């Protein structure tokens, strides 16, 4: 299995649901095995990303709050 690519999506300063739009744009071009790291500042991003993971079946590797941003690290696994 080939090593996946890593993509950073910087959605800081974008209001809800902008971070999901930015994530989906990256997801559209991603392959299974790729890792997408999203940075966001909007508080609504946290519940939205959890729901997105649950609904799509991709894998949430990490979700952490830093002083100035929320970081979500996602592994793309559910694409057909």
């Amino acid at each position, binding site marked *: 299995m080939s090593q996946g690519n890593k993509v950073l999506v910087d959605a800081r300063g974008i209001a809800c649901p902008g971070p*999901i739009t930015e994530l989906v744009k990256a997801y559209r071009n991603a392959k299974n095995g790729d890792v997408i790291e999203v940075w966001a500042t909007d508080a609504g991003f946290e519940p939205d990303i959890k729901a997105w993971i649950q609904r799509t079946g991709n894998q949430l590797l990490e979700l952490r709050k830093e002083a100035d941003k929320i970081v979500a690290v996602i592994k793309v696994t559910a694409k057909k």
Partner: protein
Amino acid sequence: MAGVKKRVVIVGGGAGGAILANRLSKDEFEVTVVDKQPYNWFWPWLLYIAFRGSRRPIKREIRSVLKPWVNFIQSGASVVNLQDRYVELENGKRLDYDYLVIATGATVDYSKVPGLEKTVELFGNYHSTEENAWKVWQTINSMKEGTLAIILAPGAYRCPPSPLEGVFLAEEFFRRRDLRDKVRIVFATFYPRPYPAEPMNELIEPLLKERGIEYITFYTLDQIDVEKRVAYSMEGEELKFDAAIVIPPHVGVSIKYVPDNILDNDGFVLADKFTNRVKGFDDAFVIGDASALPVAKTGVTAHLQAGVVARLLQGEDAKNTGRTNCPFDVGYGLGTFVISDYYNPTVKYPINKVNHLFKVAFAATYWDMILYPELWNPVFEAFFEATEPAKLRQFYR
């Protein structure tokens, strides 16, 4: 003291480009608008062609909505060179500028979704051309039973409320024809909820339920098999339909830019969110749908950004607030507005008939508003002030 006039080249004669051109002082500026085709389009009306069969004119000659002292050249721009400050036209002629404004709008890219081009050929859409909007009208008129799917494809798109406006108007159409119990309407979106901004969704989601409209969230459209009448999500989820109307992914208009690192992956122009200056340039601006800014692609954005850029060019201090004011038709003569800015989330602005009346009245003023800012600016300013999101939020939570 009258000096040499500054040359402003505006690429694009849509709402933003025309509004800006008419606001610049004729004593200070020599303004030239360039557009590859002769019309200024009132794009919101595609919705009413598609779902109401409206024959109201949707376009006017750009020349007729510009002040007489503004130059208009009908030509595509083959190169926009920000380093050497010129716009090269299709015939090779170069327009040198002191200030450049990119107002090229957005276009649709069917190639991002396999099967989408055929889907549009068959069922039409209401985000591209008059012809495709008429095709939607034919689609719904020929439908007597089955599933109508309205699908928001992943990516940028014009007018945030428009996908659901189509859904609501389709529902009204079939109910008025007494076909509502035979035609199932399904809305599929890649967002977490039917309307992406939560406060507005609190009004919209109950309305969808009340009208028996089905919806699927987190549905990231991957491809469409038109022959089998199935749309597939990226996770392989199947959505079967008899007719499908897709809001296609939008991209920037393809023009060669020098340097090309001012564009994002979808061809939108990177800019400062307060001044609309193109990334890295003091003398170039981008307004409206053409920008990569994370703001709504809608006429009101272009309108307000044009006002800010006009003031900046005239040496005033001005900055964008990120204000949106998108009319939202929910059918049966009812409407609301999506109102927010950089500092305030979307307001839960109540649905009523007066809001819809405002939308209809605005459509009637559109070209006059562009041509006579001296008459209409005070009206719009009063409206925007009365509906500032910071004020509205105190009333509508």
